[in-house]
């Protein structure tokens, strides 16, 4: 189910290159979906960045409360982090190219993440 959702999301958005379903409470990547040859350290770093951006537990690094989604953009890279609605430790980490249609992607990513998190 999770793999199918990740596959479908990446299939819908060609500018999305890597997806990782992670648990912020343990800061572990549970499932990845990518064609890229990403080393384990890179995925661990992605998960740690999700915790930094979204806030894990009571820890908020920037802002006043934990975030529902985060977008980190530089000239050559775009990373998005999305938190599940019902289970705040379930997050989706996304590595994309800067050309991604952020608005449409976030809507689809949220829907799929919520389904994955609920297990339906």
């Amino acid at each position, binding site marked *: 189910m999770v793999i199918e959702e990740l596959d479908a999301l990446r299939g819908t958005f060609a500018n999305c290159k890597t997806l990782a379903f992670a648990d912020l409470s343990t800061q572990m990547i549970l499932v990845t979906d990518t064609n890229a040859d990403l080393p384990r350290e890179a995925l661990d770093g992605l998960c740690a960045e999700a915790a*930094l951006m979204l806030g894990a537990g009571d820890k908020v690094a920037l*802002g*006043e409360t934990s975030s529902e*989604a*985060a*977008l980190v*953009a*530089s*000239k050559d890279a775009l990373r998005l982090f999305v938190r599940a609605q019902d289970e705040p430790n379930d997050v989706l980490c996304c590595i994309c190219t800067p050309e991604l249609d952020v608005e449409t992607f*976030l809507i689809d990513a949220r829907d799929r993440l919520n389904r994955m998190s609920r297990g339906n």
Partner: protein
Amino acid sequence: MNDLAALSQKIAALAATDVVFEQGARVISIGGEPGPLAAILGVIDDTILERELEFDADGRIFRVVAAGRRLRGISAVSDPQAETVVGETLSREEPAVLDAAKAVLTRACDAANRLSVRSLPPAPFGKGGERGVSAMGLAELWEVDVDTTPQPPFARFAKIARGAATAMIHLEEGEVLEQKGDVAPLQTMLETQVSAFLARQDKLRRVTEGPQFICLDSAMADGSSTTLALSDDSLVLLSHGADAIPALHRAWKALLG
């Protein structure tokens, strides 16, 4: 302004890469920045060949005909008070029509949160010899401040961000350049969080990524979102509605070219 200075400014504007497009329309004003009427006159001032310009002010559509950096007239607008203006060629010899045109355009767009423009092929309008009034002439007559000075890319991003922001702090080389709204929460973030946050992020990424745009949805106590944008010695920190995230990201992409 002499012709040479005007020409160099136009070339600089055309060379700028920070143009924001939404569904094929060029966004020229967000959150009242720049003022919608000034933005319209700016577009007309950039229009050399005859074109019908279709403006969309929060879904309200109106059209004008422009050529030779002049506004020939208003060709279409949904406004019952515009009957005396629509289809009429503007002229300095008809001050009442000029005043009415200003009133029509102001009603059409003055409260717009988002104003965009499409350039369409010219439609038949008025008589061939009637040239209309220059955009800069109208700016003077209508007392509209049209800023034609090219700005650095980050300053242009900051201007768009300002339009989207409920509160904003803009720093250049550590000094506050401008503020908007209730900046107390942002000031606290700057003083207590930003340095440590960026240090942690640098440690995680292990590579310098250059200019950065970091947007956190619903990170403020009132449910609003916050964005931190950094480039060299420039920093913008703002709070804004979640609906502004795509536009801010588009503006950021445009800045980077």
